[in-house]
């Protein structure tokens, strides 16, 4: 009986395509389930005996032999929707979401990442506390629905959300990047409704994305037109961005690997800032994007496919 690799994703998660092509070329047995297409199949799960059966136009599989699961954390409803969703859609969203979590019955498989570890690692306050504990430098941070910047030692500060802000209103959406802010931007009336993360602003910063896959580390500095970027680099025109391979000092490299392990993750995308000779931890994304960094020399898709394939 074949050992399967199970991929839980979205059909619009384009980076997944790269890994799937690698698996196909390797001759691996894989099943990609996309959240948008779950209802296209007839799916049966025997949770007690950990048996999954999937039947559909191109697939007929019944197996208890799942050697690895790539949990791309397809979330079904991020924020309160800006549109009416009928009871059928509400039902579908909530129940499929729970079903995917239920696949944890395949607990003996290699998970990238185990859902519980993903959910824990997504908490920004928890990330910072644990990063400090393991030995990273971290920025002074206050989370508050008041004038949190008053508690910071630094006069200059940034604000960011506790979780991704993606709000929908009619045909528009609101997305909030990390932003430099001034005390004049704030009043209690403009903060009380929701907590905000206030963080000291780090001068002369160089953004570094560290992608960790088990013990493998890809460290990339992000610049625009040859220069470090003062603000949130995602606000830059994408064509101006450059991704430059760098080598981290051994101790920082080890910290990144150890930190991902400590969080119970197999994969993590860590954002660091280099300022002068110091590396400062900013955050980790347990399902962070990586497709934009992958290329022939930095084949992150190869490494992900390799560990999924070689899992026992």
């Amino acid at each position, binding site marked *: 009986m074949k050992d399967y690799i199970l991929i839980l994703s*979205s059909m619009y998660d384009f980076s997944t395509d790269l890994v799937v092509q690698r698996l196909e070329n390797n001759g691996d047995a894989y099943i990609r389930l996309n959240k948008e297409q779950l209802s296209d199949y007839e799916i049966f799960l025997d949770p007690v005996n950990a048996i999954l059966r999937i039947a559909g136009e191109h697939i007929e599989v019944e197996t208890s032999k799942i050697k690895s699961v790539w949990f791309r954390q397809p979330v079904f409803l991020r924020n309160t929707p800006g549109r009416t969703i009928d009871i059928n859609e509400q039902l579908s969203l909530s129940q499929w979401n729970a079903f995917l979590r239920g696949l944890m019955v395949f607990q003996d498989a290699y998970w990238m990442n185990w859902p519980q570890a993903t959910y824990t690692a997504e908490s920004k306050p928890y990330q910072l506390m644990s990063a400090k504990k393991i030995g990273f430098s971290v920025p002074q941070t206050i989370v508050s629905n008041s004038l949190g910047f008053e508690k910071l030692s630094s006069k200059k500060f940034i604000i960011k959300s506790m979780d*991704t802000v993606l709000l929908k209103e009619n045909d528009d959406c609101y997305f909030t990047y990390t932003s430099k802010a001034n005390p004049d931007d704030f009043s209690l009336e403009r903060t009380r409704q929701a907590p905000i993360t206030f963080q000291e602003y780090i001068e002369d910063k160089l953004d570094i994305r560290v992608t960790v896959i088990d013990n493998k580390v890809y460290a990339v500095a992000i610049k625009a037109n040859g220069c470090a970027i003062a603000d949130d680099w*995602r606000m830059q025109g994408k064509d101006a961005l450059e991704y430059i391979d760098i080598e981290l000092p051994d101790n920082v490299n080890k910290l990144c690997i150890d930190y991902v392990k400590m969080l119970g993750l197999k994969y993590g995308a860590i954002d660091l800032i280099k300022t002068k000779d110091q590396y400062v931890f900013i955050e980790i994304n347990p399902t962070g994007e990586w497709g934009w960094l992958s290329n022939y020399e930095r084949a992150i898709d190869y490494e992900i496919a390799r560990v999924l394939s070689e899992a026992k």
Partner: protein
Amino acid sequence: MKQEHVLIEFATKRPYSNTPIMPEGAIYNKERGYWIKNGEPLVSYNSEYGTRVTKKCDIETGEDQKGE
């Protein structure tokens, strides 16, 4: 006049659609588990869109796969 929360004041507003606008002719192949265009993978190092097909198709939903 009611003041918006700071995180909304600082937000970037843009048109939104629930699904990305895909390149013409791109089809998701369920059997193989990836997008195809003109018989070739849509997302690959040497495809028309490269690995950064998301430059053409993505909706910014954060640095994770949590978009709805």
